[in-house]
């Protein structure tokens, strides 16, 4: 029956087309502020010292996440093309070992495609023993092609408790 086949095809369509298509579109257009989930290999390029871009850092805990989580500095001024390092602090106040996953989001979302992370704690899950604390590194480059009208980029991290779902196989972004 052809129509039954259409129904099955539409069911499959949701999984094999809509989900990846959504990811592809969001990546390509940067429309939901998602940054790339893989480390950026730096392209040697001149540092554009004629421009300054303000980078703001925000750290938020997801609902029910007990960790302490904050950036070392809340604001940096960088030149496009220059690799910059900063640190986020995390502290597990509970008695039990936990695993966390930070999810980044960039505002304005148009800037997401121009904000390259060469090293980020958000690429991996972060395990932490009970009552332990750690410093988590972040290195990034702002692309020289960043549109001229963008003078401030806000990078927001939300920290999720993934202790129960951490199988190590979940793609971290």
């Amino acid at each position, binding site marked *: 029956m052809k129509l*039954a086949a259409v129904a099955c095809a*539409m069911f499959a369509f949701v999984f094999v087309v809509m989900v990846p298509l959504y990811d592809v579109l*969001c990546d390509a257009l940067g429309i939901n502020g998602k940054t790339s989930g893989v480390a950026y290999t730096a392209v040697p390029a001149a540092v554009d010292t004629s421009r300054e871009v303000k980078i703001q850092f925000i750290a938020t805990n997801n609902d029910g996440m007990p960790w302490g989580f904050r950036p070392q500095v809340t604001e940096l001024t960088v030149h496009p093309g220059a690799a910059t390092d900063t640190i986020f602090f995390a502290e597990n106040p509970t008695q039990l070992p936990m695993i966390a996953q930070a999810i980044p989001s960039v505002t304005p979302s148009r800037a997401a495609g121009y904000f390259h992370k060469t090293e980020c704690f958000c690429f991996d899950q972060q395990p932490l023993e009970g009552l332990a604390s750690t410093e988590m590194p972040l290195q990034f480059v702002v692309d020289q092609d960043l549109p001229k009208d963008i003078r401030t980029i806000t990078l927001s991290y939300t920290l999720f408790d993934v202790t129960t779902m951490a199988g190590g196989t979940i793609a971290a972004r």
Partner: protein
Amino acid sequence: MGDHHHGPAKGLSRWLFTTNHKDIGTMYLWFSFAMFILGGTFAMIIRAELFQPGMQLVEPGFFNQMTTLHGLVMVFGAIMPSFVGLANWLIPMMIGAPDMALPRMNNWSFWILPPGFLMLASTLFMEGGAPAFGWTFYAPLSTTYAAPSVTFFIFAIHVLGISSIMGSINIIATIMNMRAPGMTYMKMPLFVWTWFITAFLLVAVMPVLAGAVTMMLMDIHFGTSFFSAAGGGDPVLFQHIFWFFGHPEVYIIILPAFGVVSQVIPAFSRKPLFGYASMVYATAAIAILSFVVWAHHMYTVGMPVAGELFFMYATMLIAVPTGVKVFNWVSTMWRGALSFETPMLFSIGFLVLFTIGGFTGLMLSIAPADFQYHDTYFVVAHFHYVMVAGAVFSMTSAVYFWLPKWTGRMYNETMGKVHFWISFVGFNVTFFPQHFVGLAGMPRRVPDYALQFADFNMMSSIGAFVYGASQIMFLYNVIATIVSGEKVSDEQVWDGAEGLEWTLPTPAPYHTFEVPPKIDATPAHG
């Protein structure tokens, strides 16, 4: 088919094993009316709680379960099955076919519905309560934060989806293969046309809904992260998938209603339908556009401006074919020999109130304005004008219109007219004030509200009780008609009624059109 029997089997097995389109249609109609009463009961609980500000009758958690189940039961249990029932009864009779193309599947698609709804209703008695995340079941409310009963909800949705898909396949197969000789596509009654297009929409989008709930199931039980940001998913993806189903769904509900009104208005205007071909094309245009407007339900999720604009313009475009339809109905009545029996009253009520709902829809389509209207009672008022005054009024009109043909007995006309006027007034008293409280900022799905909304809410609740009570009168009228209504034997019943179903004896015999009727060469529509 060896055993050639002429009447229905006796007893319960007639209904359990029937493959007769009239029996199955009847069961669909009764089942949907039962669900209408159930969903209506939930609505009465909601309105009773909102009668006064503050918390009086129910816990907030239970209130959320009521709003959720009211929406689910009304959409999937009352409106959709009622139109499938109508399709079962009427499509074979309208196109001159002896039965549906796939009668055994027809039986199955009805009989999986009651267990599906039993499963959904049983969640009310489970630990943690029934689903409480709204009928749109946005993730993560429906995944991370849902009660354990959500799994039963997911399977219930699967079952309803399978039932709808089978019903639609049956309707498409019937219309494509079983038309009487000479019944070309452009001679089909408009009710058949609207259902033909609706069935294609259903086959296309019910599997998408099944996909969405399957992803929820996997997120909840199998550790995937389709809608969980922690694992790389995205909650907004849920809204895109849901509304890719959800927007065509609202046209699935309203298109058969358009079909009914397009049969009733010409009959009581004693004129052929104005602009038959344009009606067909407008229906098709609405169906196609319905696939590219879904994100107008989610203007506030943070879409780029280009997206907002695209969905805004595409949504406004839908007003064009819809306007064509409204003008065609009005033109059909223009200089007609009008009479105002109950079916006509409900159809005119549909026309007036649906148009109001259409206008508020246009207001909501304007993205910047929608930021204010989003998730307020203005939206609630809008979709009740199109769902209740649209779909339910047209369904009521259909029951009064065809009931004499089905039963061979005439309903009580006075009681029918009283039912209409109480419904019409009750409906407007319920939902018109909700426009005002919505514009003033009262959010939907909240069991309490600010004091300045008290008067309008009390008015709304009184209207709702009146509207609800008038449906009991409808039930009484229908039962009284079946049991002891005045007998009708005229084949045409209504002097302006046109179409093959009105050439059959009244009441319609158990088997009809075993020999295909002859369709004359002249166009059936002016």
